[in-house]
Each structure stands twice: as C-alpha cells, then as structure tokens.
C-alpha cells in the first residue's frame, strides 16, 4: 500500500509516510529494518539492565538497580504464581521478557512522532517507524512463539493422544466430534491472533492519533498531545501487562490436564 501512496502530498502523505516502515527486499522476503533494529536495541537494553542487576545480585541490602529489577521480578512472579500452579523454569522468565520488551516497544510511542524520523532523514533514512509494536510482524512474532509453546506444552503434558482427545471430545462429548474439533481449533487459533492484534491495534491507533495531533497547528498540539501522552502511559503499561498475563494464562491452561 505504501508504494503508490507515499508520493501523495499533504496530510495523507504525512500520515502514510509515518506509517511506512524502512524496508528492504521484495515480497515475503521484505525486512522491516526499523522494527528489527529498534526491537533488538530495546531487547538489548532490557537484557543489559537486568544482567547488570543480576551480576550484582546480593541477598543483602540491594542497590538501586537491583531494587528496581527485583520489583519487576517480584511483580511478574506474583502474576505467574496467581494463575500458574505447576512448576516451570520457562514461564516466569518468558513473562518477564514479554512484559519488559512489550513495554519498551510501546514506550517508543511516547517519543515525539517526528523527532526520530527527522534524525533519520538527516542521516539519509527516508522512512522510519519507531514503535515496533505498530508492526504486525513484531506482535505476531511474540504471539506465534507463545502459540508454539502452548502447543508444545499441551502435547508434552497431556501426551499427543490426550491433547487430541481434548480437541475432539470437548466440550460436547464424542458424538459431536467435528463440531468440537472446529470449536477447539478456532479457540486455539484465536489465542495468538487476539494477542497480536490487540497489542497492534492499541498501539497503531495510539500512534495514529499522535500523528493526527501533529498535523494540527502548533498552538493546539500541546493541549491534545499532552493528555493523550499521559493517557498513553497507562495504555502502554496496560497492554504490556495484558500480553504477559494472557501468555501466563494460556500456558497454564496448556499445563492443565482435564
């Protein structure tokens, strides 16, 4: 959609320009370089911060960094313990990674919409979309990974036959097998799609509103963008939290044997 539109001028052109990723390649093998770059940088930031805290981790009096890291760890651990009752070495770190990574993705939304693309254009980058969670690829990458884990754990805990039985014989018993199967498949497939689209939709819409505000005269912009940014602080945290909690819930459902 970008190819024919980015020539357009005025408001539409501005919006489309902002929503067009920096890409390379053709067809399926297109790579959104900005998404890949920013998500890697943000992931690195997350890992660097926590690694720093983990290296200095002490059971004595914690420092500032450790305190903050422990606060997040405690928060995630509480969420995991609330809904997941089995034992798993993966779920809590996964939830922590998702929460922090998604939060950092979303946090990019709070940068003024023009500043990073402007810097980009100064060094010759024509298109720059700074919020990775406004790219479906980023959100689907996480939700599909989570989906794979759901399938993996379902098969591992219940056994292939147990999982198949659950798909075929629930909720209405063996006589309605095709209907059960259809229902269950839709239910399972809806999980990654809803996860990815919820995050994408919220952030895409949020970003779009920032862009629209940026189109207004400069003296109106602060009046609108300031409250929207404050509101957005809630949204970005909430979306990260929702993604994390739903992941935990889905995985604990996969662990439960009926």
């Amino acid at each position, binding site marked *: 959609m970008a190819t024919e539109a980015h020539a357009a001028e005025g408001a539409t052109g501005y919006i489309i320009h902002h929503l067009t990723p920096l890409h390379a390649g053709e067809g399926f093998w297109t790579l959104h370089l900005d998404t890949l770059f920013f998500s890697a940088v943000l992931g690195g930031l997350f890992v660097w911060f926590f690694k720093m805290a*983990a290296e200095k981790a002490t059971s004595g009096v914690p420092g500032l960094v450790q305190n903050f890291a422990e606060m997040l760890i405690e928060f995630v651990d509480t969420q995991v313990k609330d809904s997941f009752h089995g034992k798993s070495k993966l779920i809590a770190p996964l939830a922590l990674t998702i929460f922090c990574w998604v939060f950092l993705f979303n946090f990019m939304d709070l940068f003024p919409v023009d500043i990073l693309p402007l810097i980009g254009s100064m060094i010759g980058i024509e298109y720059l979309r700074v919020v990775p969670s406004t790219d479906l690829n980023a959100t689907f990458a996480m939700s599909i990974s989570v989906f794979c884990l759901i399938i993996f754990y379902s098969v591992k805990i219940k056994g292939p036959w147990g999982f198949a039985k659950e798909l075929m014989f629930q909720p209405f018993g063996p006589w309605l097998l095709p209907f059960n199967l259809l229902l269950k498949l839709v239910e399972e497939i809806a999980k990654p799609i809803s996860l990815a689209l919820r995050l994408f939709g919220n952030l895409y819409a949020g970003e779009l509103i920032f862009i629209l505000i940026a189109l207004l005269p400069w003296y109106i912009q602060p009046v609108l963008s300031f409250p929207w940014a404050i509101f957005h602080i809630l949204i970005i945290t909430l979306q990260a939290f929702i993604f994390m909690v739903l992941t935990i819930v889905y995985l604990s459902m996969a662990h439960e044997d009926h």
Partner: protein
Amino acid sequence: MSINATLIGQMITFALLVWFTMKYIWPPLFDSLEERKKKIADGLAAAERGHEEILLAEKKAKGVLKEAKEQSSEIVNLAQKRANEIVEESKDAAKKEGERLIVSAKAQIEQEIQQAKEGLRQEVADLALSAAEQILGAEIDKSKHQDIISKVSNQLG
C-alpha cells in the same frame, strides 16, 4: 503492513531474549530474592527466640533476686540474734565483774577495818600504858606486867 520475513527475525530475537533471561537473568535475581526472604525469616525467628530468652532470663533473675532477698533477710535475722546474744553475754559478764569487784572491795574494806582496829588497839594500849606509867611511876615494869597489858589490849579489841 503485511506479514513478511520480519516476523522470522523478530521470532529469533524473541527466542534469544527469552533464552538469555531464562539462563542468566531470572535465576540469580530470583535466588537472591529467595535468599533474602529466608534471611529475613531467620532474622525474625532469631529475634523471636531472643525475646523468649529475655523473658526466661528475666524470670530467672527474679527468682535469683527473691532467693537473695530471702537469704539476706535470714542473715540479718541471724546477725540480730547474735548481736542480742552478745549484748546479753556482755551484760552478764559486766554484772559478774561488778559483783566480783564489789566482793573484793568489801574484803579489802574489811581488811582495812581490821588493820585500823589493830592500830587503834595498839595505840589505846600504848596510851593506857603511858597513863598507867604516869600514875604509877616506876612501880610498874613493862616487862613484868606484859601479860596484863596484852590482856587489856585484847579486851579493847
């Protein structure tokens, strides 16, 4: 907006991040949290124990104090008793000593009376003798009439 190879790249990044978190970030931080929890619990338990020990020690101290008080009052009683005894004893001793002194003084007085009596007798005898001498002149010989003189002097005593 389309799904493309970025998805694969993102999934790889995501998997790496999760792996790294699982391996290097979560365990040390979580362990330190757990360890601190344990430390705090231990500390609280120790404090509780210390408190109990203090109560116990206080109880013990009270017992010891009570015992000491009893002992000291007993000692004081004994001392008082002993002091009374000593006073009584010394009173007795003083009484006895006084009596003894009186007796000896009486004896001395008696003795002195006797001496005085003897002296007086002698003197009266002498006087009588000299008077008789003057009356009788040379008629009376002292040596001749010695037994008479001594008889008189004995009567005087």
